[in-house]
C-alpha cells in the first residue's frame, strides 16, 4: 500500500476547522510537528501490505441486537434544561445559525 503524503501545516489547519478548533500560529506549528511525529510512527502500519486481510471493526462478533418498540420513561425536562447553557421557551437557544446543514 502506498504511503500517504506527510502531514502538513495546511492539513492541520483544515482538520482543526473541521473539528471546530481554533489554533494560534504557534499552536499550529507545534501540533503539526507533534502529529507528524505520531503519523511517522504509524507509517509502519500504513505501509504494510494487508490486501486480503479483512478489517475488524468489532472485536466480539455480535449481531442483531434489537429492542422492542415500547416506550421508556423520558428525562425530566427541567432537569435537562437546567443543565443547558441557554434556554428560551423550553428549547435550547443557540446563536445565529449561518446556513443549512452540510
Amino acid at each position, binding site marked *: *500500500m*502506498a*504511503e*500517504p503524503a506527510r*502531514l502538513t501545516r495546511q*492539513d*492541520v489547519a483544515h*482538520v*482543526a476547522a*473541521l*473539528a*471546530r*478548533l*481554533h*489554533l494560534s500560529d504557534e499552536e499550529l506549528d507545534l*501540533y503539526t510537528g*507533534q*502529529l507528524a*511525529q*505520531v*503519523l511517522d*510512527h*504509524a507509517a*509502519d*502500519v*500504513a505501509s*504494510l501490505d*494487508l490486501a486480503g*486481510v*479483512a*478489517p*475488524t*471493526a*468489532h*472485536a*466480539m462478533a*455480535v449481531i442483531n*441486537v434489537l*429492542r422492542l418498540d415500547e416506550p421508556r420513561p423520558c*428525562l*425530566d425536562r427541567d*432537569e*435537562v434544561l437546567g*443543565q*443547558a*447553557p*441557554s434556554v428560551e421557551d423550553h428549547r*435550547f437557544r*443557540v*446563536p*445565529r*445559525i*449561518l446556513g443549512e446543514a452540510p
Partner: protein
Amino acid sequence: MTTPRPAQEIAAMIRAGEDSAVDVLEHHLAVIEAGEESIHAFNLVMGESARHRARAIDAQVAAGEDPGPLAGIPVALKDNLCTRGVPTTCSSRILEGWRPPYDATVVTRLADAGAVIIGKTNMDEFAMGSSTETSAFGTTCNPHDLTRVPGGSSGGSAAAVAAGFAPLALGSDTGGSIRQPAALCGVVGMKPTYGTVSRYGLVAFASSLDQIGPFATSVADAALLFDVIGGHDPLDSTSLNRPTPRVLSVLDEGVDGMTVGVLTEFLDGADPDVVARVNQAAEALAAAGARIEEISVPEVALGLSAYYLIAPGEASSNLARYDGVRYGVRVDAEDTVAMNTATRTAGFGAEVKRRIMLGTYVLSAGYMDAYYNQALRVRTKIIEGFATAYARCDVLLGPTAPTTAFAIGAKVDDPLTMYLSDVCTIPTNLAGHPAISIPFGPGDDGLPIGVQLLGPALSEGTLFQVAAVVEAAAPALRVPRITTGAPS
C-alpha cells in the same frame, strides 16, 4: 503500618452486623482528610451523600435485610462514569459542573449491591493520557512517591485505592488506563473482555476499545467487584448477551497443568528490574505447577500504531457532541459555528485537541483507507496472532508497564514518549481480550512493579485463578505512608 482490610471482609462484617457502614465510611473519610491534599486523587469527595447511604445500609442490616455483596464498602468512581445529579467532569473544563440526569449502569449495579460511593476520581482529560497529567484540575500524585505520576488515565482511582482512601474503585481502560496505573501504584487493576461490563453511562473515548474495570488491593476483592458490575445490559448494544464469567468462586483452583506463555515482545522494551519481576512471577507459577514457555506474538508490535489511529478516530467523533449547545460550558459568540469553536478551543486541553485533530485526519477523505481501515486490518492480525498463542497457552504473562512510575512532568511535552507507556497494554484492548495487573514487588527505585496476565476472550475465570497464585508469591511492597490503615 497495617495493610488495609479486604473489602470482602468488610462487607461480610457489615452484613453480619458486626461492623457499621457508617464507621467504615468515617474511617475512610478520615484517611482522605489526612492525605488528599498531597495526593489529589479526587475531583469530588461525596461526604454527605456517602454518609446518608451508609446510614441507610446500617438501617437495612438492622431490619434484617441483606444490602448485598458490597454492603457498606466505600467505592471511588472515575469521573467519566455518570452519576445522577453529581458532577461528572471527565477532568475537563468543558464539562465542569455538569450533573448528568442519569446513572451509568455500573453505578446502579453498585448501589444495588450495597456499595457506598465515596467520590469521583481524577483522570487524564477524557481518559486521554497515561499519567493523569492532562487533567484540567491538576495532576494526581503517586502515593508511593509524591513526585511521581500515578499513571493514567485512571490515576485518581488507582491512587485512591493505593492510599487507602477506598478499598475499591472503578476505572476505565481503553489502551491500558486501568492496568498501567494499577501497576504504577501497586494495586490490582483489571480490564474485562470487551462487552462483559456495560458501557452505558461511561463517557465514551474510543467506543470499540473502552471497558470499565475494578481496582482493589487484592485479586479477591477485584473479583468481588467484577462479579457485581459484569453482565448483560440491554442498554448497551455491544454488551454480550451470554453468561459473564463468575470469578470469585474459582479463585482457589490453582494453576496445576496450565501453560503460561511469557510474551517476549513485551519484555523487549521493559526496564531490567521489570523484566526480573516478570521472570520471578513465572518461576512462582512454575513452582505452583504451571508449565512456562516463551512465546512470541510478533503482531503485537503493530499495536501501538494501530491504536493511535483507531482510538483518536473514534474519539474525534465521540467528542464532537461537546459543542456548547445542550450541556457543559459555553463560550458565547455571534454565530453557532463561532460559538462551537470558541467553546471547544477554551474547553479542551492540548492532548484532547491533538487526538481530535489526529482522529479527524485519519478519518478524512483520502486518508481513511491508508490509516483507519488499515489499522482495522492490523487489528485482525493481532487477534490472529493471539489466537495462535492461545492455542498453546492458557494465559500469557508479561510486564504491565515498561518502567516504574516516572516523574511528574517528565513526559508531558513529548506525546510520543508518553504513548509508549502503553505498549504492553494496548494489544489486549485491540483484541477485546481481558487482562489483569497484579503488584509484584518493588523495582530498583522502590516503586511498584506490576505483572500482567492476559487471556483470550471470556477467560476471566482462568485469569483470576492464575492471578491469585501470582499474588500469593508476590514480594512485599511497602504500603504508602499516607494510609493510616487501622480498622475502626
